[in-house]
């Protein structure tokens, strides 16, 4: 009998793979040893489930994989699975996310950790498949942790961080990861995939403790309350959201220690801001054209920078206000819109205006609506926006909101 060569286990290292943003999150599900996953088709989120399904079919991911009959069921199934102690994942896009809205509403109220991917997509009608952030932003007032990622690498890393933070007993809230439809969900790039042993060091098993729904722990979950208790419960949820800021910082510190990859400030990325006079602010894959434009404009001597917000909930009010008040003017690019809102702006611009209100130095803010429904945000668009911000910095009169790249 031929002797089988003894191979020593190779030292565990990261592997480089060419994968899309959706695939990166599917890989994160495998690394996190997720127990229950539910799927229901809608573009562009469904790509993550196509990868998950393949991992399950090939025996690489050991979970209960349930194809549901609607998004409402999809989110209710994982909500209850999490209550019974399972680590869970699901997601959706656009109107699918809205169809699940009732389930999305009760999940944070019940302090249920759940990690979801939102493949951001415009809300029908008219049927539109391209990216817009209004879908995920709809849960901003409900107690969801909400983060936007920019690259497939960040998607994978953030998913691991999301489970860690969501399942921390101090938090116990669901987390939605915003992934720009097509630009991120469908685009491949090189991703460093960590070995599962590293992930195990970073991500402890989900322990629901005294809130586990099990015959050994016969609790009643969500008994009916009225005015006599509801305010206290809402306040508890708010305290969990407040604590999430610190838990997030700890998670990023640990992430850097174990994976050797640093994200600096967890809440937002600053790009060429050190000596910038004006900055643009935005979320998600917008960063690509903005960064290119910033580099070009800098070659022409314009001192412009970019701040890419990651964590929208909890909102980094103090940190962002401190950073933005360094500049002479701020331009906020929204890939969403809030009809009838203050200054007819997008959601992000309104949040940043609110955050800046109590800042010692309050730079002028110009809001931009751009790239709706997946329309490309071009380098000339970014230059146009920068020019308007520079005019605001110079004290020239500008409007509070501009729609950029729109046909007249």
């Amino acid at each position: 009998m031929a002797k089988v060569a003894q191979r020593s286990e190779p030292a565990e290292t990261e592997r480089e793979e060419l994968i899309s943003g959706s695939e990166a999150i599917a890989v994160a599900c495998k690394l996190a040893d997720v127990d229950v996953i539910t799927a229901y088709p809608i573009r562009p989120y469904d790509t993550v489930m196509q990868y998950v399904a393949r991992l399950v079919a090939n025996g690489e991911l050991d979970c209960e994989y349930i194809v549901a009959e609607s998004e409402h069921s999809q989110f209710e199934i994982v909500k209850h699975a999490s209550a019974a102690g399972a680590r869970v994942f699901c997601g959706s896009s656009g109107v699918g996310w809205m169809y699940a809205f009732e389930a999305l509403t009760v999940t944070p109220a019940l302090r249920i950790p759940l990690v979801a991917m939102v493949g951001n997509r415009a809300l029908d009608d008219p049927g539109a498949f391209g990216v817009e952030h209004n879908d995920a932003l709809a849960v901003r007032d409900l107690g969801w942790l909400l983060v936007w990622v920019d690259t497939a690498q960040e998607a994978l890393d953030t998913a691991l961080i999301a489970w860690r933070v969501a399942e921390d007993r101090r938090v116990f809230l669901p987390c939605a990861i915003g992934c720009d439809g097509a630009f991120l969900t469908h685009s491949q790039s090189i991703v460093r995939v960590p070995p599962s042993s590293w992930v195990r060091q970073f991500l402890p098993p989900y322990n629901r403790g005294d809130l586990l729904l099990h015959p050994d722990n016969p609790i009643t979950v969500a008994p009916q309350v009225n005015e006599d208790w509801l305010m206290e419960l809402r306040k508890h949820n708010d305290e969990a959201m407040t604590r999430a800021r610190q838990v997030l910082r700890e998670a990023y510190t640990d992430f850097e220690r174990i994976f050797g990859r640093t994200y600096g400030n967890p809440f937002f990325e600053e790009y060429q801001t050190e000596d910038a006079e004006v900055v643009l602010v935005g979320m998600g894959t917008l960063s690509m054209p903005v960064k290119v434009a910033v580099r070009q404009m800098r070659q022409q001597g314009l001192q412009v920078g970019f701040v890419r917000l990651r964590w929208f909930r909890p909102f980094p009010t103090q940190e962002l206000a401190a950073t933005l008040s360094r500049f002479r003017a701020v331009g906020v690019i929204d890939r969403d819109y809030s009809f009838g809102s203050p200054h007819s702006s997008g959601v992000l611009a309104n949040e940043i205006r609110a955050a800046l209100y109590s800042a010692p130095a309050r730079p002028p803010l110009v809001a931009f609506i751009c790239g709706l429904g997946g329309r490309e945000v071009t380098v000339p668009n970014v230059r146009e926006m920068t020019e308007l911000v520079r005019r605001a910095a110079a004290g020239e009169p500008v409007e509070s909101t501009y729609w950029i790249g729109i046909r007249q």
Partner: protein
Amino acid sequence: MAEAIATTPLPTLEPFKGVKKVPLGEYFTSGHRTCQGCESALVMRLMVKAAGPRTIVLGSTGCMYVANTTYYSTSWVVPWMHTQLGSSGSAGLGTAAALRALMRKGKLPTEPINVIAFCGDGGGADMGLSAISAALTHTEYNFLILLYDNESYANTDIQLSGLTPYGAHTTFSPPGTAKRILHQRWKKNVAGMLAAGHPSCRYVATVCASYAVEMMNRVRKALSIGGPTFIHSLDPCPKGWDYDPMLSHELGELAVECGIWPLYEVEDHKLKLYGRTKGIAQGRSKRRPVRDYLVRQGRFAHFTDDDIDYFQAKVDEMWERWIIPGVIPFASEITNGRSPD
């Protein structure tokens, strides 16, 4: 990793042989605020008594949520969790899936744990129907969905649902001067629909708590047979049906005796009539006229003789002509004067 199991282990729940063999332990006790004479509350009590202490109960929004679990008090001795009005199917499925994953992966000790998700007729037969239907196709998970049918959206003040009987007076279907009968639709046949449409579901039954031991034994069979199962219970509701609360059991019996509520189970595609229904089908007792049932309830007080005749004709039609497609040779068996089995 723990040894792989195909599914979570099943409990052994032999039928109770007579009322004296029913254990005294209660898992749904004091602390609730249901109306006097509420049969649905009794159904909760019997359902979980039949299941025993190693049970998780999920309850969708409705009277059996709002009146049974008040913050800082609960009538449930076993773990209980609320689910959304249309989510009893998803709640049962999600909980059973978690148990299966955690036991399979060695994260929880392997043991039989009953999962029961209940819903009212509104939540179950209307908005929750698609989730229940989907849940019944997931054969690798063990759980029971119990629909307690008080024939109205009772909790929100007695509105008509897809299971409200023809012509009943509800707050959404009051008798008026221009339209005496505002609700003209006939009640959906939920148990039959689910039995017929879900060939992999091993057990579907109708029950009535007026026959308590029979009802508990159906629950025990549903929980021990494996896979997802469904039970539909008809529950007289003194508030919504408008009768003296002391008559609740009697009304349940009348519904069965008048043939309005046939008691049957479909086990592995085989129909079995049981109890009074079987007796009627076999000609041992006579089907009573529906009038006996209708006149005892305020919700039918506006009925004329014609309305009662119409109601009777529809019930007769069910007994004489109905077939549940692909599953139940109901009509021919009954016209031959014998019940299948």
